[in-house]
């Protein structure tokens, strides 16, 4: 059990001058900068709202017990770093932080977060970070630490700000936009791919690919295509039994899709967690994981898909239900998308 980390912060005035600034006008909550005093918190409690729906909502209250061996929160201690802000009516914030680091889950080999602008670049050498909406994303840093950075020099996707839950995404146009990386090592026993995305345009007869995982000759591919296939998302493995339809639902709304290869012939596909669609391809699903292609069919450079992609993770292991739930809830909170517990 990892408990949330509590931060209690003290609001200290900024840009305010005694005798000059106007109380009630120049100073207020919004003009304070908060300084954590967390290291001295022993316990806290909070009471907000009301007991019954017909009651009036009264003033919310909280209490915090602070350890004060050094006297830093003694109001009259002029040598305290908090002086003179240890006083009544100083603003205080209590916050809780949950830390989920996908890299701490064993097996992460690629992690692309299109909400992290500092990891997105306007050049394939990854020296010029994106600045504004509509910048082109030609390079993406792999946050896994494995060095599998994405790139595309000619037809990259577009950086779009404030798209989902206030976060930026990569927009693939469905015409020729793509990002890819080669050189991954094929996993030996399983793998798990997680992606948060939405289809931008209407479903159509075109084969619109969100991701292909491939080697030089073969691939698996997650896509939509209303012409030959169903209205949901479909799975294709070109060295196996071809297309399996309706393996995932909801590409028209933001959500998390997960593909988990359990063995060479067992693959689970999850739409926002819950119960998977299980496939049993008749060829090895483990051998094609040396190339990641986003927004297109990596083998043939065809089947471009119009998608907004928020975040993608690839593990070279079949993740446990616990790990999938940890990641699914992390993505759900971050991107405001559903996640049903996988059991």
């Amino acid at each position, binding site marked *: 059990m990892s408990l949330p980390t509590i931060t209690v912060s003290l609001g200290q005035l900024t840009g305010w001058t005694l005798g000059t600034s106007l109380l009630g006008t120049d100073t207020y909550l919004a003009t304070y900068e908060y300084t954590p005093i967390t290291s001295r918190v022993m316990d806290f409690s*909070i009471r907000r709202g009301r007991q019954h729906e017909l009651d009036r909502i009264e003033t919310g209250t909280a209490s915090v017990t602070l350890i004060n061996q050094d006297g830093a929160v003694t109001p009259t201690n002029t040598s305290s770093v908090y002086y003179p802000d240890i006083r009544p009516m100083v603003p205080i914030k209590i916050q809780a932080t949950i830390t989920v680091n996908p890299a701490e889950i064993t097996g992460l080999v690629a992690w692309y977060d299109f909400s992290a602008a500092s990891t997105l670049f306007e050049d394939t050498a990854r020296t010029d970070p994106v600045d504004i909406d509509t910048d082109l994303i030609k390079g993406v840093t792999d946050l896994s630490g494995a060095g599998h950075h994405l790139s595309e020099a000619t037809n990259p996707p577009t950086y779009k700000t404030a798209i989902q839950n206030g976060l930026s995404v990569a927009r693939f146009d469905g015409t020729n936009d793509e990002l890819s990386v080669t050189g991954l090592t094929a996993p030996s026993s399983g793998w798990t791919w997680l992606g948060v995305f939405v289809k931008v345009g209407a479903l159509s007869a075109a084969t619109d690919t969100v991701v292909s995982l491939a080697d030089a000759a073969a691939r698996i591919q997650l896509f939509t295509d209303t012409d030959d296939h169903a209205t949901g998302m479909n799975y294709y493995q070109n060295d196996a039994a071809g297309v399996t339809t309706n393996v995932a639902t909801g590409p028209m709304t933001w959500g998390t899709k997960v593909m988990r290869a359990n063995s060479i012939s067992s693959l689970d596909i999850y739409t926002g967690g819950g119960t998977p669609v299980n496939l049993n391809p008749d060829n090895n699903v483990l051998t094609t994981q040396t190339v990641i292609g986003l927004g297109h069919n990596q083998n043939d450079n065809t089947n471009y898909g119009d998608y907004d992609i928020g975040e993608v993770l690839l593990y070279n292991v079949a993740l446990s239900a616990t790990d999938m739930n940890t990641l699914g809830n992390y993505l*759900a909170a971050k991107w405001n998308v559903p996640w049903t517990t996988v059991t």
Partner: protein
Amino acid sequence: MSTTYDLFTGFAESWTASWEGAHRQGTDLVRLQLADGMKVLNLATVTTTRGVETSGVRIEALLNAINWPADLMDIEVGQSQVQAVTLDKANVLAHIQEVAASESGQFFIATDGVATFFDRFHTTLLDETNDVWGDEVGEKHYASVTPSYDDQTLWNEVTVTAPDLADQTASDAISQALFSGPVGGRSRTLSVSTLLTTTGDMLDRAEFLVSKYAIPEQRISAMNIDNGSLDDTQWPRILMKDLHDRIIVKKRPAGDVISQPSFIEGIQIDDNAGHWRITWNLSSTALQEGQWELGTAGKSELGTTTTLVTS
């Protein structure tokens, strides 16, 4: 990757020192007491004249009058008109609460310090994937629920008052006969003070309240969470919650299934040396007006926000 949630934003009321143990050998502690922005509103007075206007417009006008920062306001316009008023050094919080009661809405300071007003038709969508709390596999687990089925909030006569307008009363004779014991026909009266502008609105309010509170119903009035009952994946769904957020609580006692779509009315959090205990006071969404609309997402999903009844 970390996600931070505001739990409370307010102001220090007191810093009370205590010294435990022998001199220079014990523990020096300071107990910090806090109050949220409601305290600021309770300290503020306002002198102004306002005409007839909707509840939210009135509340926003008062907040503006005392220089409450615009970026710390989230005020809905409101459904009900409130009476014109001349305020002379009037307590701001008291008037806002009276206006909110007239609307049958909610006024509160959110976890991030934002003064928030929801009118009575405010819709908080249920995330039926992530916010079903129960005792079966696949549901988020609580430590316990507090059921209630009693006469503490049984009201079979409701009188709504407003200045310069005739009191409006609605009653339920069947309830009065059922719940008065051998003496029969006695009322349990709830009085609601408002600033509504018409007797029609007042009567509607009285009739609505009687329809909801004349017959006691089994309800879950609180849900208790203990970190011993949690797995790590549940924390985001707990810490992101604020007042009036919506959840479903399920309990399966022998021979029954209680499933209550609920609003969070109150939040209590205690953390003592890493032992977290959280209590959400709950109300049934059926007790709020405007929570069912045909064909509207979040208001008419069969089995979730809507129960099909045949007769």
